[in-house]
């Protein structure tokens, strides 16, 4: 056999392997998400729960989880929680879907896309109950709808910004062409250095960042007050297979986090101190963490004072917004996004 024939044979083998490997789909496997239900823990032993965070590194939004652990709320509820971190922000839902975590803190857009992709996860409670995303200017620079024309506006290239910004521009009577939208990796230094006129972010991270750096408040234009839907940004979500196998643990987790959130709401400074002791290398200053947590607290309770409770309207409004920018083909029935079944009402 000459070398040309050997080469031809190798090529044919490679093509054959490719066809064999790519043929057929694994849609069922992809939809199941994870290795199935976790068996109940032995009586008296806490149920081990792996909770994935919304960001690759820890920040003040982990305060309720830290407080629940440190104050013994998790232990009282019979769960033993391990907090893990995704490799990148967009992977938080994937980590949950693969079963690497049982419960996760994710963005509501992640949840909407997870339903679209059939990841097998469901939102079980709002972390924040309102839309705290907005537009920010550096201290001393006023911001209003009529000041946006011609401005350089930064975003992270994320779906949330892409979905919400058109609402605000529309309320200002503007279109994409009336502003310059730039994609950045870290907005704060660019804003403070005047390289962008307006940054987009959530209040708890941007206000605390600006206060930490300058000691002054930034100009804030909240999207929900300027045309955008008032939909929560973050939710707790569960791997469906895990929830089917251990619903009690999920309920217990939310109950403990609820108690911790109330405690951290009544004792914000102590809660932040507890967080910083648990994560001494969190990389942020106490000023940032305190300002961030106190800002977050403004959004954790619904209009009726409740924690976690979701409704159809918030999911439909979000899905409609995402459909409006072409990120979703269709708005799924609200029940596919969430359930309030794990929220204990006592």
């Amino acid at each position: 056999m000459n070398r040309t024939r050997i080469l031809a044979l190798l090529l044919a083998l490679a093509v054959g392997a490719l066809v064999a490997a790519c043929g057929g789909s694994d849609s069922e496997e992809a939809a199941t998400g994870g290795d199935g239900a976790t068996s109940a823990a032995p009586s008296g032993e806490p149920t081990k729960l792996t909770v994935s965070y919304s960001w690759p590194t820890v920040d003040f939004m982990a305060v309720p989880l830290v407080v629940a652990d440190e104050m013994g709320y998790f232990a009282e509820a019979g769960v033993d929680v391990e907090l893990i971190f995704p490799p990148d922000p967009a992977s938080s839902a994937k980590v949950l879907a693969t079963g690497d975590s049982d419960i996760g803190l994710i963005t509501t857009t992640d949840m909407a896309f997870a339903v679209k992709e059939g990841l097998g996860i469901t939102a079980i409670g709002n972390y924040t109950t309102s839309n705290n995303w907005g537009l920010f200017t550096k201290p001393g620079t006023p911001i209003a709808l009529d000041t946006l024309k011609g401005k350089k506006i930064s975003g992270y290239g994320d779906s949330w910004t892409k979905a919400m910004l058109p609402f605000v521009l529309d309320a200002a009577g503007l279109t994409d062409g009336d502003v310059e939208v730039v994609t950045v990796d870290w907005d704060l230094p660019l804003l403070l250095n005047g390289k962008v006129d307006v940054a987009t972010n959530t209040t708890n991270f941007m206000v605390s960042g600006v206060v930490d750096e300058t000691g002054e408040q930034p100009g804030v234009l909240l999207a929900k007050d300027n045309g955008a839907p008032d939909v929560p940004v973050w939710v707790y979500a569960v791997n469906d297979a895990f929830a089917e196998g251990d619903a009690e643990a999920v309920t217990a987790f939310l109950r403990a986090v609820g108690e911790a959130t109330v405690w951290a709401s009544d004792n914000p400074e102590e809660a932040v101190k507890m967080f910083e002791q648990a994560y001494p290398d969190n990389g942020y200053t106490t000023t940032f963490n305190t300002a961030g947590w106190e800002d977050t607290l403004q959004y954790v309770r619904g209009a009726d004072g409740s924690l976690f409770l979701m409704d159809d309207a918030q999911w439909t409004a979000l899905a409609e917004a995402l459909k409006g920018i072409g990120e979703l083909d269709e708005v799924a029935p609200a029940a596919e996004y969430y359930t309030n079944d794990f929220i204990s009402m006592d």
Partner: protein
Amino acid sequence: MSRSTLRAILIPLASVVLVFAVWAALIRLFGVDSFVAPTPLEALGAVREDWSILWPLALQTLEETIYGFVAGAVLGFVLAVGMAQTRIVRDLLYPVLVGSQAVPIIAIAAPLVILLGFGILPKVVIVAWIVFFPVAVSVLDGLARVDPDLVALARAMGGSRARIFRVIRLPATVGPLFSGLKIGATYAVTGAVIGELVGSTGSSLAGYQRQANSSLDTAAVWGSTLLMTAIGIGWFLLVVGIERLATPWRTRSTRPRLGFGASIRPDHRPGDAP
């Protein structure tokens, strides 16, 4: 099409197919969910689906790569020549050269955007930053390997410094230059993408990828990665092509038929039969 040409096309093609086959086989073997890692066909399908969006973005990334690559190559060559001429300059700059590559590029990318804005300039600088080093080191290495006896002979025959550089030293840099250019070509696209990630006006290939990642569209993430890889490979092949055209004696061992050197066989060694 000659057999050698066919072979030159088929072998690399077979390696690409083999990589795709192994990739697909691993996905199936380990039961990896498509939202974690898609099959090659899913990734290629995502590219096909969004081709009208991706093509202009790929051209934009290619433009950043080309400008940065040329700037880096020129800078690297000039630096190497300058360093080869004067020992003190070489001793002074060599640690800086090495140090420049030890700095994580992502750490300087953000300040570059603050300093240079959101346009093409920071991307060009980042690509040049990546490309100039292999070019400078390779050319410097080539210059250091020039036969000192040859230089001494030329000097003894009255050759000026400039003429010796042009006739002896400069030709010695050609081979190493292309080695450096080929290394730089494979990394150049990465630099452009990092620049796009840190700050861009409007759309970019990196921005598309980030958006797809944000939408849990894993096939599109991998598809755009394939496109970035294709740009890198394409750019590498272009450099190889230019090298073949510019230095035919490095790849052709047959006797030239016409013109200068017709009586010289490149593969002729002393003692060989004529």
